[in-house]
């Protein structure tokens, strides 16, 4: 419930719409009760052959409440839905605000895409919290209390019976089923998850299963899992029907008490018989307002889970923010130094970088090479303060990275990561990210420099750049750095999916632009590194060798061996 608090906070800020939806909801609920009460009274009155005008008045009242009920319901729906969608938009912004400081570290993890997809679904799911959980009880209480107050004018005992009915249908039954629902829901989710995993494995792993002749076995598994899941679903469906039936049962039982007690009161002259029909009609109608309570537990549980998951995401990060006193120089290239740094990802047993030292003087060009998994990308992320090293220190321009704001580092570096995001929109939108005031000419020039002149600036880009090839994405990411023009370059295998000829040309251009700048290149190939000032060979989080290209070749060590492999693989 605590997790839902901030959702409630957002609901409270939408005061006007919330009050209006409750107001019209109450009007609709009460007029319905009034309508049926009046019709019951009307018919009893009519039986006594009253003067015609009283009947006309009653009928007029009947019509009026009929209209009011319909319009009240309409307005209630209108305002409650508007409130819901406004609240949702606020929740989205709020969530964005909360998760923003956690990026990029939260996004570097495995399955972050899945996590975020779930989050987006969870926020959408919270739309039912206001509609189905938050305000139906308010409505219920208001309508019931008014109705019960009204009945006290005629009979206290009947008012009491209605009150008992309210407690049972509004509190006892929902509470009972809330508990049951929670248990069933969690087993259902578990069974569904299992079946879904099995179906996924069956379809994606089909060829491997087929070749290894494990298909019949897997199919058998599937049928079992499917049965398990169906059984739980069926149980849920039946409990749901039971819940609804019990709900109807109790309201009918209350009406039964109303009529029996009412009849007794009439026969003992404690109640005028003319009101009996009215009271019976009231009790039959007023419980309609309690029906939403039957489905409330399900929605509450759903909302609670969604809210908890959202909260979990936000709480995942715990890195305390240091005081940021120091600012990076505006335009000149600064040097980067790492002293004996070590780093391990929280979920990994082995550290990905240990006792690593590196110095990139201002204006130098350094390359890092090594097999995949050697910690190259992690090092780059440490230099960008995506994470802080567990041991050792990183110095930017001579100052500890702890005292430099992340934003400041990113504003002064040209970064190309292995995975670069492209947003839904156009090529232009995606380039403007790097430089808001860039002209079309500048952007076209940047595209040309990465050999993407066939792209028009208005060309559509889908979410995550889905409609772009790997090489195109890499080149667009480089084009963005050309527009940004910072004086420190940190590039993580920026051209691994680009063909050799284009790669060569783009790289020459980068070197021209970065002539005065500090540049660090993580390279997937060894060819072409002759132009770098310094090359570092990494393996398993450590420096194996370093030096200029010529030095390393002359040493005939690890680098030389790697170079031999590369040449042999390609040329042999």
């Amino acid at each position, binding site marked *: 419930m605590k997790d839902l608090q901030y959702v409630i906070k957002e609901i409270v800020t939408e005061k006007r719409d919330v009050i209006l939806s409750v107001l019209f909801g109450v009007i609709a609920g009460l007029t319905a009760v009034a*309508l049926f009460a009046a*019709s019951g009274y009307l*018919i*009893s009155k009519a*039986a006594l052959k*009253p003067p015609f005008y009283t*009947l006309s008045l009653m009928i007029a009242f009947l019509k009026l409440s*009929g209209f009011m009920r319909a319009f009240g*319901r*309409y307005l209630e729906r*209108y305002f409650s839905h508007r409130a819901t969608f406004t609240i*949702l938009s606020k929740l*989205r912004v709020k969530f*964005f605000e909360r998760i923003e400081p956690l*990026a*990029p570290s939260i996004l570097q993890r495995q399955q*972050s895409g899945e996590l*975020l997809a779930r989050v*987006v679904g969870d926020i959408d799911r919270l739309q039912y919290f206001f509609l189905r959980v938050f305000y139906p009880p308010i409505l219920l209480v208001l309508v019931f209390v008014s109705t019960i107050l009204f009945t006290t004018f005629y009979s206290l005992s009947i008012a009491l019976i209605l009150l008992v009915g309210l407690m049972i249908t509004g509190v006892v039954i929902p509470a009972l089923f809330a508990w049951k629902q929670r248990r069933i829901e969690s087993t259902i989710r578990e069974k*569904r998850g299992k079946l*879904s995993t099995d*179906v*996924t*494995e069956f*379809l*994606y792993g*089909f*060829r491997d299963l087929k*070749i*290894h002749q494990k298909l019949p076995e897997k*199919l058998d598994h599937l*049928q079992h899992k499917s*049965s398990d899941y*169906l059984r739980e679903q*069926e149980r849920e*469906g*039946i409990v749901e029907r039971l819940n*609804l*039936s019990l709900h109807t*049962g109790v309201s009918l039982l209350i009406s039964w008490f109303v*009529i*029996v007690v009412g*009849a*007794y009161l009439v026969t003992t002259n404690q109640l005028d*018989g003319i009101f*009996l029909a009215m009271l019976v009609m009231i009790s*039959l109608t007023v419980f309609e307002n309690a029906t939403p309570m039957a489905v409330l537990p399900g929605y509450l549980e759903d909302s609670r889970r969604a809210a908890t998951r959202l909260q979990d995401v936000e709480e995942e990060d715990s890195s305390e923010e240091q005081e940021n006193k120091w600012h990076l120089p505006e335009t000149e290239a600064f040097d980067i130094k790492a002293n004996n740094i070590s780093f391990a990802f929280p979920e990994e047993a082995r550290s990905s970088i240990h006792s690593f030292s590196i110095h990139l003087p201002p204006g130098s060009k350094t390359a890092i090479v090594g097999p*995949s998994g050697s910690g190259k990308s992690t090092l780059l992320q440490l230099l960008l303060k995506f994470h802080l090293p567990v041991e050792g220190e990183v110095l930017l321009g001579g100052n500890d990275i702890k005292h430099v704001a992340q*934003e400041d580092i*990113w504003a002064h570096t040209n970064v190309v990561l292995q995975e670069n995001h492209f947003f*839904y929109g156009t090529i232009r939108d995606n380039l403007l*990210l790097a430089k808001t005031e860039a002209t079309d000419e500048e952007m076209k020039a940047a595209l040309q420099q990465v050999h993407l002149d066939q792209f028009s600036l208005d060309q559509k880009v889908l*979410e995550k750049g889905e409609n772009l090839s790997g090489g195109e994405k890499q080149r667009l990411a480089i084009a963005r750095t050309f527009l*940004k023009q910072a004086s420190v370059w940190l590039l993580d295998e920026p051209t691994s999916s680009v063909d*050799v000829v284009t790669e060569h040309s783009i790289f020459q251009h980068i070197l021209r632009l970065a002539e005065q700048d500090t540049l660090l290149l993580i390279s997937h190939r060894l*060819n072409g590194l002759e132009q770098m000032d310094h090359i570092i060979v990494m393996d398993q989080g450590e420096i194996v060798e370093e030096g200029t290209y010529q030095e390393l070749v002359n040493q005939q060590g690890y680098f030389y061996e*790697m170079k031999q*492999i590369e040449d042999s693989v*390609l040329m*042999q």
Partner: protein
Amino acid sequence: MNDLKKLAKEQKGSRIWLIVSSSGLALSVIAQAYLIVRIVDFVFLQQASFEVIIPLAIWLAIALLARVGFTYLNGWIGVKMATTMKRKFREKLFEKFSSNPLQASIAGQSGHKVSVTMDSVDELDSYFSKYAPQVIQSTIVPLSILIVVAIQHFPSAVIMMVTAPFIPLFYAIIGIMTKKKSEEQMDKMAIFSGHFLDTLQGLTTLKLFGRSNQKKESIEQSSLDFRDATMEVLKVAFVSSLMLELISMLSIGIIALEIGLQLVVFETITFVPAFFILVLAPEFYLALKDLGSAFHTGRGSMGAANKVNEELQQDIQPVHWGDKTLRHLTEPPHIMLDHVGYQYEEDGFELLPVTAEIPAFKQIAIVGKTGAGKTTLLHLLAGLLPPTSGELKVNDASLNEYQEEEWLGQISYISQHPYIFSGTLAENIALGSRKDVTRNEIEEAGQQAGISGFVNGLAQGYDTIVGEGGRGLSGGEKQRVALARAFLKKPSFIIFDEPTTGLDLFTEQILQQSIQTLSKQATMITVAHRLHTIRQADEIWVMEQGTIVAKGTHEELLQTTSVYQDMVNVQKRSVTL
């Protein structure tokens, strides 16, 4: 909808039960109204004593219980029916998927199939559990009420008959009006959520460029725009229920007015039938309205049913197998391709007839661009696809004369993305063997595949959980697991489909050593892209546009085939730059 209707009708037993319980429900509704009216009449007009109404009160209690009971029964039958149907559909889907040989080659569509099996089948639920029972209930209950009212007081029944059709009519009109719009809105909702997700996933990029505040504003704005657009659609829906509410309210009002007039002015009706009709009228309209809302939920199932049927109706050509065995072979089988061709559905990609020979222990490399038909050829060789023309011969008999398990027992197929199942590393390797294997055998296979170094670094070793929900494996590690499976299986015919694409050169180098070992006891056919792998082959097949354009050794092809020369040149150029 029609398909579903037919299926619902096939559930004869359930339908009869639904009719029975709905009739019971109708009876109890009518009895409830009648008894209430009688009790009120006794004590109010006839001034009877309380004792008189006690039996009536007991009957009323019974009627109420029956009403609840029948409502529950209706729901229960619906739920059972939904379970039966969902099970049936899922079983049919599994059967379809497992007998479809194409499943092996179209993994790209697997995401869709998972969603059909899970989500679409689940969406069928509301049709059988809610809509189908409601249709029966909403036919029987109002009809019974109408008959009773007609017997009691014909003019009221006439009013009901005249006004009732307006409710389904309105539902139909509004349904047509809002259907397109609301579907558009659903699409928009999906797109909108997609964009929000896109923004979240791109947060790193946004922050690197210092643009997150700008995006925050755009989230808020588009979120509010979306709200306004949704409200437009909802307004129509709300107006529709307003109209329905008004129709039923007005109709009840007219009935009340008519009865009141008859009762007071014309004195043609007495209190009991008048009150009776007044209590029944709302029940009548309520049942009709329920049908309307059930119709909406039922319609959601229609789309799902279409998706499921689309999957079920796909044509498949299964691979045929015979009863010959391949046991007691001393060396790998001799394979002949005699004009073997394959065409995916009409106008789909066609692999033109291939004639070739793969003698035992030979190493064949296939080269060619994406889309040349390399993988299709491998699938034909593996017996995963049935040739649509020609014949594949193994040791002088057609492949489909052998038992399926005999052939599959001989081969290993290692692709670019071997699938890792959720379970331990040991279980994943053990997949290679049909027999129970010992831990020693698994570890030995791991050793040969070069995975032991990596495994020893793991806290849990071979018991580390991998695959879905477990530890993620890198591309190179997955390949090594696949190789370990092969070492365990000891196949005589190994098929490699670009196993090292996407791996860095150093990882590839290590893998190649294991592949060499593996190939010593087997015939091997590899789709390759690196020159050094290709050069080692005994024979190279160059494929282009669905056909083999040349066969020969590296030196021969360099002399004769320009496509091959080009390919070699591209790789060489990458070194000299």
